[in-house]
């Protein structure tokens, strides 16, 4: 494939019920009302010269290069800012316009370094292109006058250079930061000749509010803002469209290559999830894929105290199969199991669960979604009938009220956050439900109408109180509920009870009743109201209950089944949705069908040639318990670092030490591999061939840009293990695995690599009823028939603060780092977040004698660790917060075994802790800065 350049029509598309007809240089074209002359011309095949215009940004009209003549109109209006009118006749090329454009270009070029041959953007520079287009041959003004060509470069950002000497002040970078990203970090500083692009108040890029999303770099028409890698090695020569391997937004990217080397990742305009936008992780933090610490050869060892021994693939597979078989022979078929990865493709995950069910002969397969969104699966299946979000991302553009609960989209799902912020700037109202004051609560041009700053662990009380207001104030959508729902009488009776009123729960939640009532009224009466939520909902003892509570609220107000509404889980990892779809849960076969269903099981038994178990298998926490009990002794782990990411680290480590065999398949030696006997090197997303499914159920292709550096695709490794254990499992190509998924799973019946390559992406269900997929679910009816309104009593968590542990610790993530940090810590992203810190309210810090920057010990009932304190007014009194991106800080040493009652999803968001100075302050007032190691509480 050659270098892919998407067409740029100059100004954004418009949607309208009416169209207008215009003629451009004799070409007739019909466009939606509101379309610019420039865009209409482009659609008619006429490229009007331009510099300040690009179709990802609203027209600005500053460069004056796109001037045209319009019959009956005086002068030469800018085509980018002039909307088409019916019957308009436009001329884009004649001698007068050519003279004007050459004059404009002369002025630009007279203040531009003429170093095109040595410029990084040579061949990819719009200024260079336009000089050619307008036929510029001479600059009458000369180059000796005052100019900007010797301004100092800003090289502070690790990923891109800022060279102001090449800036033409088109403001595309400033507008991209405003309109696309929504951060407003850039401005034009000064006036007239002194005008210049400035991050913040004349700061360096790295020191400013810039979030390094890359939108400005992408928008720059010259090499003023240029990817560092392009500067270093030159322009790419070919593109491969693929999918980002970070969060659940699932952005499409062009991997732009030079030979076998990635030069840059450029967000793909036709990507359904991101539509040409990106964040610092997907755009820039892909260097881990070729990091020197990647392990590329299989390794084995008899004991975890031995040194690793590099072996051939044949020996590693045989060793793995023999030991797994031996464990089963000695301890029974249920003594081994596997964990699938939400970072791997659907095809790679599917074969793991197939290996476990058919080759291992049990259902002991689980996935890392256990510790994040398993309550979403439970709650939405109970209420709606299927375990997935209801909307596509574009739906947010039609929301009138957006409720964000337990999510921090600007850090966790930044590209979707930009879509959301755009809608909020247009006037949609925002309600944030979160103990912490996340950025969305108040950021440039956005302010939440209500921030319900609830006490951790009281989500259900809050959502019930909102529903109570809806029902008791007559705000229920009676017609929708009567037609579409069941269980109504029981639910209405429950939710109307006085104990669910805002006033009754105020002392528990900490949310003022009046504020909560106002938020509920806003949600119920605004028109289109949409709920977006994250792990602040699911990672609680009532995670599943809360998901059902939100679904109840949406159904009661009729906010389901059309654009602009819905219940929308923001998935943490790139393929959480897909790994769940693929049958990774121990009680469900692919497509969320219970293993006890004889008809479903027979489909797989016929195809796979093995009798399958009808009983559920062990979930991850159950595997750990059974390992310590001695009945679970062998574990295959695909791409998940359970020793760092799962709660109560001491307990997890004990379980892993108890096993006879731990097999880790991953890119790097991680915390879990310290307990492993076999290490099977995995492949990065740049080497994978398959599909990811994002949070909006969108199945995207993941295309390889290079051969597997480990010599073997991950699905082949799994097939080889299964074969070595005596179960024949082989495919020639991953497309055959997807064909098998489509054959066995009704919601995927219409999915194939060929179909995806043809249309770009598909949102399941994709079958004969919806051959092109399903952007919005539950439109005319719920998957389960009627939506089920289910009473959701608030049950307080067992994890309570006490005199010994008076604070509540809650956890989250930060923009620049990702999950356990295995990828991002191996990139320059660590410049922004070199260590996890503990955010503490000033009052809680003061009473403990803690100052900003002190090392503090965080102790819970199960362990203690040390973090650096940051005094933060984001936190309410009594609540502290940290991230878990760095293994050295060991945040999960202190999190406990408490879990969601229905799914066993850990309660990461509520841990009772005490915080104190790690070491006594010296007489000089200085605390020693050595960081002690995390320590468990004795006795576990």
């Amino acid at each position, binding site marked *: 494939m050659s270098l892919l350049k998407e067409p740029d029509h100059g100004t954004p598309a418009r949607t309208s019920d009416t169209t207008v007809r215009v003629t451009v240089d004799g070409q007739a074209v019909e466009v939606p009302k509101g379309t610019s002359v420039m865009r209409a011309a482009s659609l008619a095949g006429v490229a009007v010269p331009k510099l300040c215009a690009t179709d990802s940004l609203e027209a600005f009209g500053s460069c004056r290069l796109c001037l045209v003549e319009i019959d009956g109109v005086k002068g030469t209006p800018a085509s980018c800012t002039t909307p088409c009118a019916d019957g308009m006749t436009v001329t884009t090329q004649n001698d007068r316009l050519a003279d004007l454009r050459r004059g404009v270009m002369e002025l630009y070029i007279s203040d531009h370094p003429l170093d095109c041959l040595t410029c990084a953007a040579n061949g990819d520079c719009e200024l260079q292109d336009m000089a050619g287009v307008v036929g510029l041959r001479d600059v009458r003004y000369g180059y000796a006058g005052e100019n900007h060509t010797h301004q100092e470069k800003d090289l502070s950002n690790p990923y891109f250079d800022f060279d102001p000497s090449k800036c033409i002040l088109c403001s595309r970078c400033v507008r991209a930061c405003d309109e696309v990203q929504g951060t407003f970090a850039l401005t034009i500083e000064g006036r007239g000749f002194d005008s210049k692009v400035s991050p913040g108040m004349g700061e360096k890029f790295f020191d400013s509010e810039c979030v390094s999303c890359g939108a400005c770099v992408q928008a720059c028409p010259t090499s003023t803002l240029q990817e560092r890698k392009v500067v270093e090695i030159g322009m790419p020569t070919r593109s491969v469209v693929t999918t980002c391997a970070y969060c659940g937004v699932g952005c499409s990217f062009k991997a732009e290559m030079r030979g076998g080397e990635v030069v840059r990742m450029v967000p793909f305009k036709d990507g359904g999830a991101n539509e040409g936008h990106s964040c610092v992780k997907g755009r820039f933090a892909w260097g881990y894929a070729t990091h020197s610490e990647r392990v590329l050869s299989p390794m084995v060892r008899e004991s975890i105290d031995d040194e690793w021994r590099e072996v051939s693939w044949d020996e590693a597979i045989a060793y793995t199969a023999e030991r797994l078989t031996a464990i089963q022979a000695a301890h029974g078929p249920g003594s081994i199991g596997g964990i699938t990865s939400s970072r791997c493709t659907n095809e790679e995950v599917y074969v793991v669960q197939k290996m476990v069910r058919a080759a291992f002969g049990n*259902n002991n397969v689980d996935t890392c979604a256990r510790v994040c969104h398993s309550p979403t699966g439970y709650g939405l299946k109970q209420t709606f009938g299927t375990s997935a979000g209801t909307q596509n991302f574009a739906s947010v553009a039609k929301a009138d009220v957006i409720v964000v609960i337990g999510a921090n989209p600007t850090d966790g799902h930044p590209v979707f956050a930009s879509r959301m912020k755009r809608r909020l700037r247009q006037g949609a109202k925002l309600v944030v439900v979160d103990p912490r004051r996340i950025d969305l609560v108040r950021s440039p041009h956005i302010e939440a109408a209500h921030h319900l700053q609830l006490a951790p662990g009281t989500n259900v009380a809050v959502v019930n109180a909102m529903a109570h207001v809806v029902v008791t104030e007559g705000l229920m959508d009676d017609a929708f509920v009567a037609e579409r729902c069941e269980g109504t009488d029981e639910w209405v009776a*429950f939710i109307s009870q006085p104990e669910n009123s805002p006033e009754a729960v105020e002392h528990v939640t900490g949310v003022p009743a009046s504020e909560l009532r106002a938020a509920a009224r806003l949600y119920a009466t605004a028109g289109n109201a949409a709920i977006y939520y994250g792990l602040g909902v699911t990672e609680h003892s009532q995670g599943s209950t809360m998901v059902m509570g939100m679904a109840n609220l949406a159904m009661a107000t009729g906010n389901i089944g059309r654009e602009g509404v819905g219940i929308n889980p923001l998935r943490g990892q790139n393929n959480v949705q897909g790994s769940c779809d693929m049958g990774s849960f121990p009680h469900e076969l692919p497509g969320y069908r219970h293993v006890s269903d004889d008809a479903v099981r027979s489909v797989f038994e016929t195809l796979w040639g093995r009798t399958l178990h009808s*009983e*559920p298998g*062990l*979930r991850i926490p*159950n595997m750990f318990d059974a390992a310590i009990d001695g009945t679970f002794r062998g574990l295959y782990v695909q791409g998940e670092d359970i020793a760092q990411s799962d709660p109560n680290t001491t307990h997890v480590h004990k379980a892993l030490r108890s096993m006879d065999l731990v097999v880790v398949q991953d890119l790097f030696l991680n915390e879990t591999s310290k307990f492993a006997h076999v290490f099977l090197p995995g492949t990065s997303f740049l080497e994978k061939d398959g599909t990811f499914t994002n949070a909006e159920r969108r199945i995207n292709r993941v295309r390889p840009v290079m051969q597997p550096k480990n010599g073997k695709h991950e699905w082949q490794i799994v097939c080889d293990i299964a074969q070595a254990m005596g179960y024949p499992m082989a495919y020639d190509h991953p497309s055959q695995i997807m064909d098998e998924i489509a054959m066995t799973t009704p919601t995927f019946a219409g999915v194939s690599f060929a179909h995806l390559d043809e249309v770009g992406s598909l949102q399941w269900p994709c079958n004969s009823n919806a051959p092109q997929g399903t952007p919005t679910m539950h439109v005319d009816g719920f998957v389960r028939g009627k939506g089920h309104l289910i009473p959701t009593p608030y049950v307080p968590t067992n994890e309570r603060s006490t005199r010994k542990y008076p604070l509540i610790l809650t956890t989250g993530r930060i923009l620049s780092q990702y999950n356990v940090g295995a990828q991002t810590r191996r990139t320059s992203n660590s410049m922004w977040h070199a260590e996890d810190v503990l955010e503490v309210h000033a009052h809680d810090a003061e009473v403990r004698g803690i100052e900003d920057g002190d090392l503090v010990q965080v102790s819970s009932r199960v362990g203690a660790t040390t973090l650096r304190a940051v005094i933060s007014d984001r936190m309410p009194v009594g609540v502290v917060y940290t991230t878990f991106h760095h293994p050295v800080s060991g945040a999960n040493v202190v999190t406990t075994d408490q*879990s969601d009652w229905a799914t066993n999803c850990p309660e990461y968001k509520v841990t009772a802790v005490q915080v104190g100075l790690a070491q006594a302050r010296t007489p000089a007032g200085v605390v020693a800065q050595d960081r002690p190691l995390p320590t468990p509480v004795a006795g576990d």
Partner: protein
Amino acid sequence: MAVAAQVRLVNDVARHFRHLPHDEAVAGVVQHVRTFWEPRMRAQLLAAVDAGEDGLDPLAVEAAEALR
């Protein structure tokens, strides 16, 4: 260790069905455990009931009997 885990888990389940009428609550716990618990977890629960394990929710005990 695992027995204690099953006791904690089943108590959590019981607390979330307690709002229902008694027979429905018992049936809810039974159905949940049958749907989501691996057989050895159920066996450990029954063993805990047989051993008169401390701290078992009465609703969970009734559900366990129905699981036999």
